[in-house]
């Protein structure tokens, strides 16, 4: 039982886990179960990253994907509160024949991708790229990527905030500077929201 064998064993078993979990994920009817499998898939991906000599990416995968992004999903699923109804609905939305065309498409694409992978002799072995190297390159030549990422996240933040808020406060008129600072009490805001809903109902 050599180290290489052990290493490969872990790699292939995690790879199988990732594929199986993803497969289960796309076939689940219950959103929370699907998320659970997705988390398992991400965690096994993290292990694969570690095996590929990218510990930083592995930890980031857990912290960001599993620790933050998936939480958002769970959060939204809970807020939507779809319940049992959604499971039945999902079952109705997933007829067997609906799988044929997508599966063929994906299979063809997969075959092409694998075929296009080329000969492996160009590739060298696994290299360890540590946190320090990544940091030096990230804040050196790739500084623009950091800036872009921050802009992207800011845009996402603003967009998500704007989209998910429940009602918009009344827009102040020009020159009516006072209205910026007048706090709108909760009851007023609720009334406004109610009015809006009534109007929507009429429309």
């Amino acid at each position, binding site marked *: 039982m050599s180290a290489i064998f052990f290493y490969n064993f872990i790699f292939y078993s995690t790879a199988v886990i990732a594929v199986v979990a993803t497969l289960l994920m796309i076939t689940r009817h219950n959103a929370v179960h699907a998320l659970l499998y997705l988390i398992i898939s991400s965690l096994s991906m993290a292990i694969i990253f570690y095996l590929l000599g990218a510990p930083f990416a592995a930890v980031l995968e857990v912290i960001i994907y599993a620790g933050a992004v998936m939480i958002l999903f769970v959060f939204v699923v809970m807020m939507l509160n779809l319940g049992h109804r959604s499971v039945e609905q999902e079952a109705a939305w997933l007829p067997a024949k609906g799988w044929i065309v*997508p599966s063929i*498409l994906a299979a*063809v*694409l997969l075959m*092409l*991708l694998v*075929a*296009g992978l080329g000969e492996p002799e160009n590739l060298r072995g696994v290299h360890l790229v540590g946190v320090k190297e990544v940091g030096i390159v990230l804040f050196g030549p790739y500084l623009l990527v950091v800036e872009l990422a921050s802009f992207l996240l800011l845009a996402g933040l603003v967009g998500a905030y704007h989209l998910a808020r429940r009602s918009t406060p009344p827009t102040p008129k*020009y*020159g009516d500077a006072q209205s910026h600072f007048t706090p709108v009490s909760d009851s007023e805001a609720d009334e406004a929201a109610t009015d809006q809903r009534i109007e929507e109902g009429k429309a």
Partner: protein
Amino acid sequence: MDILWLIPTLPLLGFTILVLSSGRMPREKARVVGIGSIALSFMTTLYIATQYYAAASHGLDHGAGFTVSLWPWIVAGDLNLNFSLYLDGLSLSMLFVITGVGTLIHIYASGYMWDDPDYTRFFTYMNLFVAAMLMLVLADNLVLMFLGWEGVGLCSFLLIGFWYKDPENGFAARKAFVVTRAGDTAFAIGLFLLFRELGSLEIQEILHRATDEWEVGANMPTLIAILLLGGAVGKSAQLPLQTWLPDAMAGPTPVSALIHAATMVTAGVYLIARTHPVFLLSPTAMTLVASVGLITLLIAGFTALNQWDIKRVLAYSTMSQIGYMFLALGVEAWDSSIFHLMTHALFKALLFLTAGSIILALHHEQDIRKMGGLRKQLPVPFWCFLIGSACLIALPPTSGFWSKEPILLAAWEVDPVFWAGAVLGAFLTAIYTTRLMILVFFYTPEGGPPETHEPKGWQLHPPLIILAALSLVAGAFHLPAADALPHAHEHHPPLWVEVTGILLPLVGIFIGYQVFLKEKWQGLRLANQQALRDFLAKGWGFDWLYDALLVKPFLTLARLNRNDLVDLVPKGVVVASTQCYYFFSRGQNGQLRFYVATMAAAAIMIISLALFT
């Protein structure tokens, strides 16, 4: 000199502030911005003038200018244009006229336009106009000059159509725009020719090269001079492009005063004066300039005799006075021409503003038949109008006399025919001015003089008084423009020539007095000859002529050409693209999954193409 750039920038800044306020600025503040930018520009001009004179007195060559290069503007191949300003005596005098008279007219307008709902918009346009005009006169190259040239055209268009809700004003604005465009096209072609022949657009360099490369009387300078003259004629409302100016009176009166009397319409004079070396190379062009001026001044004088709208009378008189300037240019009396430009700017602005006061006092009544006997009711406008009229008639010792007399003398020197026409024009000027004075202020119609009301605001009278004072004494000024232009010849005509030039206007006044106030010699009254009256009232039928010659054939041609075969090609394109649109829009079915599947299929195709070829 280093703050020369401030002069056009300040009005532009005012324009920017006003246009960014998008009409929400309170009137008081808009007024401050509108007037303040021009006034600051005027002060800058004064400072620049002191510097200019100081430099001139320190042995600088007379006539040489200062070039202030700001930044490279257009760099394309051989063409290398700087955004640079040029200051010499000519542009300095123009600066005085534009900023000085401009400031006074802005002050006046702040009172005149007070009740208008679009107060801010008015000052926005006015500031933009002043900026463009300053750019025009300060430009160091012809392209920059053309920029200002078109800028003032735009502002003129905007301001004539200021009260755009009345379709008549819109038509007038459009007419002015289109007619001046005809001249501008000629100007632009002239520019291209200059660039092709001389390889430069820097004015000073062009002028030097032109005199170096061309002989007097060669074809090319003649052609270029005539094209430039076309531009000048369009802008300055001379024959044959004069028809837009009377209609331009549809704009607010301060606009008429500033743009259509004092500054913009004299841009043509400035252009010819600026490029005079080119004109000097072509005696034909010079004769043409003089002839155009002469004919225009006569036609406009006759037309002015028979107008009932106070502003149209003044508009025709403006045309006539610019005719004098062209005449002066054509007879090489350059400095007299610019001097007349300046004095005319003063007294014509005065006349227009006074007319504006009268119009305002009569609740926007412009028909002189409904005025009369206003001498007592409107004392300040009366005296101001009197002084302005005296200047216009060129009675000694007003400034009009000192500027017009040299023109007459110079015309005599070149050709007595020019002199005779000019004197006849002066005679006509005296008659129609007297007529206007009498009908507005002296002659009491049946039913007594009309009701007037005191206009609100303190801004109306001080500019009038200042302009009146300036009009009286401006003849004593030494004009810096003289430095920049070749000196006129010393004239020594016979004495009777000079005396005739002084006396004939007096005769005209007497005739006007007899005919219009005493109501004698009614046979001389043009109003009694029906056909002639109509002909004159319609500006010698030029509008009809252009309509028949240009507009109608064009419209007919367009109508005939409406359904020709060529249209099938664009129509076919339209049909084909519509069909394609219907076909492809079926794919845009709003189904996300369909889109993704399409993308995946496309990815498969691209990858297989990459792999298997």
